[in-house]
C-alpha cells in the first residue's frame, strides 16, 4: 500500500509544488539576490543582467542609514509591543468572562467577531471618522463630554496615532482571539479547578497555577498570530494616517520606498524587505519555541 502512494506523491503534489515555486520560492530567492544589486525595477544599474549589477551590502548599509526606514522599524516594534499586550490582555479577560457564562456566551462571541469581517481599509476609514469627529469634537474636546486632550486629534500626532492604531486593531482582533481562548478554556477540565478550590486555592492562585499552564497551547497560537499580524500591519496604517506624522510601519515603508526616490530604488526596497523577513522569522520562531516549551502534557 505504501508503494501505491509513494509512486503518486510527485504527480499529485505537482500542482501545489508548481504554485509554490512560482509564487513563493522563486520570488523569494530572487528577492534576496536582488537586494544585493542595483535593481531599479525596470533595469539594473551597471548592466543588462542582475549579475552585472552586484553592489555587495550597499543596500543594507543604505537601509540602516535611511531615516524613514529606521523610524518605521522602531515604530513597528513599538506598535507590536503595545498591541500584542493589549490584545492579549483584553481578549483573555473577555474570554474568561464569556466562559464563565456558559449559555449566553455564543451571542457575545458572535458580536465580538463582527469587526473581523471588515477589511482593514474599511475599518480604518470608520475609525478615522471616530478619532477626528466623534473623539475630537463631541466626546473629549474642551466643549465635549469630558475634556481629555490626549484623545483629541489622535491621527495627527506620532505617539497618539500609535495608540489610535492599537485601539483600532484591538477592536478588530479581539473577536478572533476570543474564539481561540474560549476554545482553550473550555478544554480545561473543571475537575482541576474544583479540586484546587477544595484544597483552598484562591481565584488568583487557580488562574496562575491551572489556567495559565493549561492554556499554553492557546497562548502559542494567539501570540504567533498577533505578533505576525502586528508586524505585517498595512491596510489600517494606510487608511488611518497614510504614514503621515512619522507613522509609517515597515510594510508601508517597503511599499513606499520605490516612490521616495527617482528612479525608484527597488534594490533598497528589497533589502528592507529581507530585513523585514528576518525580523519576523526570528521573533516568531523564538516566541513559538518559548511558549510551546511551556506547554504541559496531561
Amino acid at each position, binding site marked *: 500500500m505504501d508503494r501505491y*502512494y509513494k509512486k*503518486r*506523491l510527485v504527480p*499529485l*503534489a505537482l500542482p*501545489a*509544488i508548481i*504554485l509554490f515555486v*512560482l*509564487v*513563493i520560492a*522563486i*520570488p*523569494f530567492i*530572487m*528577492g534576496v539576490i*536582488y537586494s544585493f544589486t542595483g535593481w531599479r525595477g525596470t533595469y539594473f544599474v551597471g548592466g543588462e543582467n542582475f549579475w552585472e549589477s552586484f553592489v555587495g551590502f550597499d543596500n543594507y548599509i543604505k537601509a540602516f542609514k535611511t531615516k524613514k526606514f529606521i523610524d518605521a522599524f522602531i515604530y513597528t516594534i513599538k506598535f507590536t509591543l503595545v498591541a500584542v499586550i493589549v490584545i492579549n490582555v483584553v481578549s483573555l479577560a473577555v474570554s474568561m*468572562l464569556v466562559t464563565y*457564562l456558559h449559555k449566553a456566551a*455564543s451571542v*457575545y*462571541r*458572535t*458580536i*465580538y*467577531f*463582527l*469587526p473581523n*469581517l*471588515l*477589511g*482593514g*481599509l*474599511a475599518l480604518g*476609514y*470608520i*475609525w*478615522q*471618522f471616530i478619532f477626528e*469627529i*466623534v473623539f475630537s*469634537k*463631541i466626546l473629549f474636546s474642551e466643549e465635549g463630554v469630558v475634556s481629555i486632550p490626549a484623545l483629541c486629534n489622535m491621527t495627527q500626532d506620532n505617539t497618539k496615532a500609535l495608540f489610535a492604531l492599537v485601539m483600532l486593531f484591538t*477592536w478588530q482582533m479581539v*473577536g478572533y482571539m476570543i*474564539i481561540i481562548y474560549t*476554545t482553550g478554556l473550555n478544554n480545561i477540565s473543571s475537575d482541576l479547578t474544583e479540586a484546587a478550590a477544595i484544597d483552598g486555592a484562591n481565584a488568583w492562585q487557580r488562574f496562575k497555577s491551572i489556567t495559565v499552564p493549561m492554556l499554553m497551547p492557546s497562548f*502559542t*497560537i*494567539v501570540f*504567533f*498570530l498577533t505578533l505576525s499580524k502586528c508586524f505585517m500591519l*498595512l491596510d489600517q496604517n494606510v487608511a488611518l494616517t497614510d504614514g503621515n506624522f512619522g507613522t509609517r510601519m*515597515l510594510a508601508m515603508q517597503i511599499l513606499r520606498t520605490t516612490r521616495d526616490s527617482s528612479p525608484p530604488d*527597488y534594490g533598497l526596497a*528589497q533589502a528592507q*524587505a529581507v530585513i*523585514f*523577513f528576518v525580523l519576523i522569522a526570528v521573533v516568531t*520562531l523564538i516566541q513559538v519555541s518559548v511558549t510551546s516549551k511551556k506547554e504541559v502534557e496531561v
Partner: protein
Amino acid sequence: MSMKGRHKAGQIVAHIALILISIYTLAPLVFLLFNSFKSNNEIVESPIAMPLAWTLDYIKSAAEQINFIKAMGVTFIITVLSVGLLILISSLSAWVMVRSKTKMAKVLYLVFTAAMLIPFQSVMYPLLDIFEKMGLKNIPGLIIMYGGFGLSMSVFLYHGFIKSVPQALEEAAIIDGANIFQMFFNVVFPLLKGTTVTVIVLNGMWIWNDYLLPFLVIGNRDGVKTLTLELYFARLTAGQYGNPWELIFPAVLVTIIPIVVLYIFLQKYIVAGVAEGAVKM
C-alpha cells in the same frame, strides 16, 4: 451571601461587562449605518445621531461611484476561484504527503509550512516582475498568486487533519477498483469537510478584503476592480479636498453588506472554522 446568590451576582456583573464591550464593539458599526443616510453637513454637525431622514440617495450615489455591482462580481469571482483552487490543490497534496510517508514528502511539508513565515513584502516586487513578464499581471494572475499565498496554511490544516483519518477505507476503495481520483473525491474528500470549511473561511475572508495584491496587480486600470480597490480609489479621488464622509460611509457600508449577510447565515461555521484552524496549529 449564599454560594448560589454569589454566583448569580457574579453572572450579572459579567453580563454588564460583556454588554458594555458589545456596545463598544458595535458603536463604530452603528455610526457607519447612521451616517450612510446623511449629507456631509449633517454628518459633521450631528455625527452620532440618527439620520433626520432615511434617504437612500447617498447609498445609491456611492454604489454608483464605486461600480458596486460590477466590483462585487469581480471580487466574488476572484474569491471563489482562488479559494476553489486552494481547496483542490492543497487537500490533494496534503493527503498524498501524509500517505506516502517518504522522506521527500516530509521535506516538502516542511518547506510548505516554513513559508508561513515569509511576509508578502519580501516576495512582492520580484513576484510582480515575474508575472508581468509572463503576461499575468491581470485577474488570472491574481488568482494564481492567491493560490500560492494561501497554500502554506491550507496544506498545513489539511495535513494535520488527514493524519487522523484511517487509511482502511481507501484500501477498500482500491480493492473495489476505484482509481486514485475516484478514491480521493468519493472517499477521502467528504471526510475532510470540517477542514474544508476552515480553509474556505480563513482564506475567503482574507481574499475578499485584500487591498494590497489587487492594488499592485490591477491598480487603477479602468473597468475591473475589486470592492476594496474601488473604495480606496474613491476615497483617494474624492478626498483631495477634505474628507468626503457622505461618500465614504455609504461606500464602506455597501462593501461590507455582502460579507455581513454571509456571516449572519453562516456564523456557526465561521466561528467553528476559526476555532478549528487555531486548534490545528
